Structure formats: C-alpha cells, structure tokens
C-alpha cells in the first residue's frame, strides 16, 4: 500500500499564487473527492502533483512513500506510480492508441524484461471491452477524432493498463453522458484496491453517485477549507457552497454552480 503526502504545498502560475499551504494525505485503498467552485485550484493541484511545467512549486513537498517527487521530471513521477487522468487529453495524430499504451507500459519495465505482447493485447482488449470502447480502439490514433466521452474512457483505460499507485482523475465526468458516466464510474470503482489511492476532482456530485469517496475535501481560493465524509456532498448538492461563507468566514468567491459550463449530457439531464 502506497501513501501520497502533500505537505504545505504552495504553487504559482505566472507569478500568481494558486495553491496555498495545501496538505493532503492519500493512502492506497482510499478514494478522496476534491470539490469546489470554478477556479479554486483543484486542477492546479492535480497538475502540480504530476509535474506540469506551467506550475511552479514555491514551497512545500510532495512525497510518494519515501520518495520526494516534488522536483522530479514528469516521466519519473509517472514511473514512480502517479497518474493523472486529464480534463482535456491531447490528440496525437499518427500515434496509435495501442502503440502509445504499449510504449508507456514498456517504459515501466526494467531493461532486462520484455513485454509479453500476447498477454498485453488480451489485457488491452479486455480493458477496452469493459469500458465499451469498441474493437477498433487499438488502431485509432491517440484521442484523434474521439468524442469527449471516448477521451475520458481512454484515460481510464490507460490507468487500468499502467496500474498506478496514486491516481488523480481531473473532471473525468465532463463530456460523459449518463450511460458513459455509469460505465466509467463502474470501471473506476472496480479498480479500487489497497494498491491504488484515488483523488477525484469534480464540480458536481453526480460522479460521486457512482464512485463513492471515503473523504471529501472542499477547496476554495487555493486552500482545502473543509474535510469530511459523504455528508458534505449532500450539503453541497442542496445548498451549494454558500453556507461556507458564514461557517468559515470566507467571502469573495463565486459559489454559483455553472451547469452550462460543464457541457455534458449528464448535466443536461440533471438540470431538467
């Protein structure tokens, strides 16, 4: 079982502080949900942990077990066991999904080991079938021409194949219709094990109907201001984030939900 420790993390972008003294501990087997209004730093946290060069770590530390990954290159963090399912996965024309995942799996293997290609193909096909991604997926170019939902499912497929220790799922619900949300939710839930700690980043509680979190954190203005259990989801569902203003004495944040900005079929159903 692995543990990710984020300690007093301060992160800036282009000189503007986004994350302020963020502390978070994620153990293998745990599922954490980070919720909060738009623009409060949820995705910044995920990207900073993954090592996106746009984000500058001003102070604090990120530890994966005994390894300090705070200043490691992105690929080394990944090989150490950190995974980020991205909000907007990029398209890489000409590179097939199969070749990409195969190369990524090989990158994790020691030099003296060879990938057993037959076993890999079976595993890839089984993961694709479970996510209902169709048989042609392997030969399609990486995310090119994929629908929003297909891109998100492809992120989960990669997560299944790469078997990370700690995974951040950044708004994995956006772009998914109700059925796709259920398929992704079930696939992620099926991956729960003591070997995997997960952090779900979401604006909306709908995803959390399918993936039950053990801990819910609310992030506002770059800080985790409240941590609790599923009761927080229900409270946000019924009252939004407005109650935090009075309870925590926070003001000057936009607590309004913006369902139009999510742009998912799931939300369209939700808002009827």
């Amino acid at each position, binding site marked *: 079982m692995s543990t990710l420790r984020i300690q007093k993390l301060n992160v800036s972008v282009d000189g503007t502080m986004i994350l302020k003294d963020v502390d978070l501990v994620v153990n293998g087997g745990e599922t954490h949900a980070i919720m909060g209004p738009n623009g409060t730093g949820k995705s910044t946290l995920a990207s900073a942990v993954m090592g996106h060069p746009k984000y500058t770590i001003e102070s604090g530390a990120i530890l994966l077990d005994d390894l300090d990954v705070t200043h490691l290159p992105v690929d080394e963090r*990944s090989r150490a066991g950190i995974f980020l399912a991205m909000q907007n996965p*990029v398209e890489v024309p000409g590179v097939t999904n199969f*070749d990409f995942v195969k190369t990524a799996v090989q990158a994790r293997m020691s030099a003296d080991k060879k990938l057993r290609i037959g076993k890999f193909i079976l595993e890839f096909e089984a993961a694709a079938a479970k996510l209902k991604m169709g048989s042609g997926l392997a030969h399609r170019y990486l995310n090119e021409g994929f629908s929003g939902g297909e891109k998100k499912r492809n992120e989960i497929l990669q997560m299944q194949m790469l078997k990370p220790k700690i995974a951040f799922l950044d708004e994995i619900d956006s772009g998914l219709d109700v059925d796709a949300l259920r398929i992704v939710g079930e696939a992620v839930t099926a991956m729960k094990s003591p070997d995997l700690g997960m952090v779900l980043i979401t604006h909306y509680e709908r995803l959390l109907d399918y993936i039950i979190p053990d801990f819910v954190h609310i992030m506002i203005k770059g800080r985790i201001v409240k941590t609790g259990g599923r009761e927080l989801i229900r409270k946000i569902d019924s009252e939004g984030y407005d109650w935090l203003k009075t309870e925590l004495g926070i003001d000057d944040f936009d607590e309004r939900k913006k369902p139009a900005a999510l742009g998912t079929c799931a939300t369209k159903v939700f808002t009827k």
Partner: protein
Amino acid sequence: MRIPRALRELRDVAILSARGRVNHLFSGSMAVLRSQIRFTFGTKSQREAAAIVLIGAGTAPIVIRFKAATPSKVRIFLCSAASSSWNFAIRMDEGSTASVEFYLIGATEETAFERSVAVTSGASLTLATILLNGGKTTVQDRSILTGEGGTLRSETLGVLAFEDSLEALQSVRHDAPRSVSDLVNSLIASDSAQVVFDVTGAIAKGNAGSRCKQQNRGVLLGERASIEVAPKLLIDEFDVEAGHGCAIGRINSDELFYLSSRGLDQATAKRLIVSGYTAPFAMKLNDPALRRLFEKALDAKIGGAS
C-alpha cells in the same frame, strides 16, 4: 548506387539501371522506347504490389497507364547516389483504380522530381510520395481531374535533415464536376533543413459538386530548421466544398507533457510524436524487408528525433 537487397529480392519487380534491366514476374507491361519508358498496369490481377526500381541519375520520361480491368498497386523506388532527374506522367483510364507509392532514397546531391497526373471519369488514384533522399530536392507535382467523379488522394512525407532543402510546387486542378481531391502533406525538418512547400487547389467554373481539400503539417526538430508552407485555394464555382489547413511548429509542449505523464522520457516522447508523422507511411509497407529499408533511411535522417 548499389541496389538495396530488399529491392533486389522483390518478386514482382522491374529494375532499370545503367547496367540494364531485370524483370521478375512483373505484373505490369513495360516498353522502353527512345523518348520515353511506358508501363501499363491494370490488365493482370496482382497478388501483391508491383515494384519499379530505378537506379542512377534518371531515365527518359516515364509514362504509367492504369487500365480499368483490375485495381493496381505499384511502388516506385528512385535510388540515386548523386544528382538525378525524374519525370513521371500517370494516366488513369476511365473507371480505373490504382495506388502508387513513390520512394526517393539515397544520399543525393540534387534531385529534380516532376510528376503530372491525369484522372479521368470515375477513376480513383491514391498517391503516396515519400522523400527520404538527401541534398537539394525540387518537386513539381501537377494533377488534373479531367473526368466527372474522378478522385485523387495524395499523401506526401518529406523528411529532411542536415543541410537538406526541399522546394515543392504542388497543384491540383478540378476540370470536371463532382471530382474529389484530398492532399495531405507531412513535413519533418531537422538540423538546418529548409522546406518551402507551395500547394494550390483550384476548382474551375462549371465543376459543381467538387471537393478539394488539403492539409499541411510540419514539425521542426532543429533550431535552424525551417518549414514554409503556402496553402492556396482558387475556387471559381459556388456549389463546391473546399478547405485547407496548415500547422507548422516545434513539438507541442502539451503533447510532450501528456506523453511524459505516462512515463515516457523526453527522447522517447519526441520519437513517438515524430513517428506520428512517419508511421502511417511505414504501415503501407507490409513486407518486413521493405519496412526495414524505410526505417533505416529514416533513422539515418532523424534517428534521435531531437
């Protein structure tokens, strides 16, 4: 230049070099005349792609005609160690279907490659042009869709490194209604390589229902490398579809981050991104020996992809 073994051992091949010509069960017909060399395909069915291997400084103009009886697939390898000049005319009979791949290989000084294509009614031609040669290359590539419903799809891969240069003029003209053209150009420039690619698609008046598309993309791998593409559309008819696009740049940092986030180091990630340009062409070669020849030529140019 010695004939690469992978080409010598092809089964359905015509090899022309200064030393003479060799045919191995060639499924096309060939006539070497004083002023031109003529090849005809589409009369005999093929088990695999026929190959034409041309070695040396160039030949008399080559006319390749495709008849409608059976679909044809032809690979043409142009191999030269020094300067060379090539001139091709492709003529598609009505209703014929053909796929033609051109491979330019060799560490040449100067290469002049000229090609004219005519696609008649109901004919369908798929072209692939792979420029893996070195030195200074000039390309003049003119296509005309002369018959209703004629279709041309043309993909070009240009891989340049060191001090290589490529100057290309590519044009397609729609002279018939409901004709279709689709041009895709992929360019890789490493080191100090220079590319100037001028692409024009034209639909003449009266050719309603035609579609003319072009996509150009290029990746710069060298600090001093440059790629300049001028995509143009000249449209003189209302009821048509036409579009062009061009994307040239260094390796995208978002792509690099994405691949790195899956554990690929920078060098592997860059190689994979560059393979996105070359792999679709490599996949056309199902013969392992030919695939190796392609990969070896590619590796000699951009082995490090950095």
